[in-house]
């Protein structure tokens, strides 16, 4: 994959006066969904603003698909940004907002008309398009911001808290849209506090706190790197007590907890490879009928708790 397909941060720092935004961040983001995770004030929005050229780095270098914001015409044609602010130029209808945004991107009136219709339909806002945004619900305002961000067909979509204010149905629709765009080869960079839902579509996670990068990469790989926190595995089986006692014969198994329904057991281990090897042996012996095995804490939520949790005041 060449630099023309990546979002690259090379040793990037950003200071607002004496206040640290982000410090010495290096990232390489391929297409797909990347989730920025961190507590409030951790530097997520600063990373997004740097990515979209809204603020300039104090040091380091950023390139998005090989471009820099120095050429705004080319840059913003490829980048769509949905801010976290619930704010719009006053007095506009949803249609005017998206249409004018396309005109600002340099589309002709005819193209802008077509693309605005397409984007509003994609977000399910066709019927409400000609109503004033001021009369929209919070969820509709979020959607119209999303429509504005995707309308000009960018290849990079930067979404700051895009699920805030959406009801469960709208969240599911938005996540489906993100997933679809990601599968088509688009870059999506999302910050969200709704970790369990974003988790479903994320290809990689970037954890940041206090302006420092804590971890980045595939969620499962990041979890495996957190060695000081034993991994938790849920095993659904017919004899969870027997399984737990067998597993405890190994010194890397540190905790066992029966599932509330009695049909499984949560086990914590410090050596996941050895754990699975032993589990295979038990399954082969036929003493325990194992129905399902699933990691119970290698999701974004768990990684967040382990790496940032109490320090970051998780929100």
């Amino acid at each position, binding site marked *: 994959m060449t630099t023309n397909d990546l979002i690259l941060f090379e040793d990037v720092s950003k200071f*607002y*006066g*004496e*206040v640290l935004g982000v410090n010495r961040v290096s990232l390489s983001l391929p*297409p*797909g*969904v990347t989730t920025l995770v961190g507590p409030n004030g951790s530097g997520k929005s600063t990373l997004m*603003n740097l990515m*979209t*050229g*809204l*603020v300039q780095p104090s040091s380091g270098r950023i390139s998005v698909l090989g471009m820099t914001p120095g050429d*705004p*015409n080319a*840059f*913003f*044609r*490829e*980048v769509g*940004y949905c*801010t976290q*602010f619930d*704010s*719009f*130029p*006053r*007095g506009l209808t949803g249609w005017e907002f998206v249409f*004018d*945004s396309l*005109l*600002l*991107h*340099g*589309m*002709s009136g005819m*193209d802008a008309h077509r*693309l605005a219709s397409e984007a509003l339909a994609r977000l399910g806002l066709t019927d409400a398009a000609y109503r004033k945004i001021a009369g929209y619900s919070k969820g509709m305002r979020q959607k119209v*911001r999303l429509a*504005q961000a995707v309308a*000009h*067909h*960018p*290849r990079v979509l930067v979404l700051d808290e895009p699920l805030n204010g959406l009801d469960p149905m709208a969240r599911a629709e938005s996540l489906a849209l993100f*997933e679809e*765009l*990601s*599968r*088509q*080869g*688009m870059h999506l960079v999302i910050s969200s506090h709704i970790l369990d839902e974003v988790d479903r*579509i994320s*290809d990689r996670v970037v954890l940041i706190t206090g302006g420092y990068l804590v971890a980045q990469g*595939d969620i499962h790989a990041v979890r495996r790197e957190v060695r000081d926190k034993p991994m938790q595995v849920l095993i659904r089986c017919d004899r969870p007590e027997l399984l737990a006692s067998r597993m405890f014969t190994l010194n890397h198994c540190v905790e066992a907890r029966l599932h509330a329904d009695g049909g499984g057991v949560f086990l914590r281990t410090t050596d996941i490879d050895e754990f699975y090897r032993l589990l295979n042996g038990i399954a082969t012996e036929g003493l325990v009928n194992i129905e399902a095995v699933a990691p119970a804490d290698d999701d974004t939520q768990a990684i967040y708790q382990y790496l940032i949790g109490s320090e970051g005041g998780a929100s």
Partner: protein
Amino acid sequence: MSVFKLEYRAYEGRVTPRWWRVGVLVRYGLAEAWSSRVTVGLFTLAMLPVLVDLVVIYLANNSVARMMVTPGKTFPLTIDAKFFLRVLSVQCWLGLVLNAWVAPRLVSFDLADNALPILLSHPVSRFGYVLGKLLSLFAILSLVTWVPCLLLFAYQAYISPQAWLSANVQVGFGLVAGSLLWIALVSMIGLALSSWVKWRMVATGVVFAAVFVPAGVGGVITGILRTRWGFLLNIPVMMTELWQRLLGSPTVMKSDIDLPTGAIAAVLAAGVAVCVAMLNARIRAREVVRG
């Protein structure tokens, strides 16, 4: 994990020139300004003196009508550079009132609503944003300054003997140049101060204060130090001097003021430079947080 089909296609159609896109911001500005009834009221107010001046020009050039209005008396006004200096002054000061109302609406709302990140995440620079707002103000202020002044001048030229136009061509140029200078100055002051004051009504007051408070300070300096240079803080005096010279009008102020044109131009340029610096510091996609 996503399976990349790489079927996503970015927009590859033609794009409009960058200057064309500023037009969207100008449209936003004009819509915002005219959405207020106060703007309409102030605009109407600013047109009233134009109507009076129109009647005066008509009377001054029509002996029959003049005799009907002031029978047996001499008509007190002649239409000359001094007349148009008064017209220009009145229109420009009414323009200041309109500017003090409109300019904060153009910027303060965007800052208060955090609308700048949305606008600036398009291929529109901060300069383009400010230019859009300036052009909106220019259009509105033009309607109450050089456009009516020039129309009155054209009417006077039309109904008076041709010799009048030949003798007063400078007045026409002066009306346009004087208005443009005034529009540039007050719109920069209006936008710069509005970008620092989020509360619109306060911003309106601050625009007036920026014009008249330094004038008071200048008056104190002039009085205490017995020097004419204190008038260089007095925008009304400086502009009146400039307008006089641009229109070729006889002086209407005390002759001991007589500020050099270069000094006036330098002070006004410095004022505009301060406004540019203020806008540069504030018109950003993000507020700079200082701990």
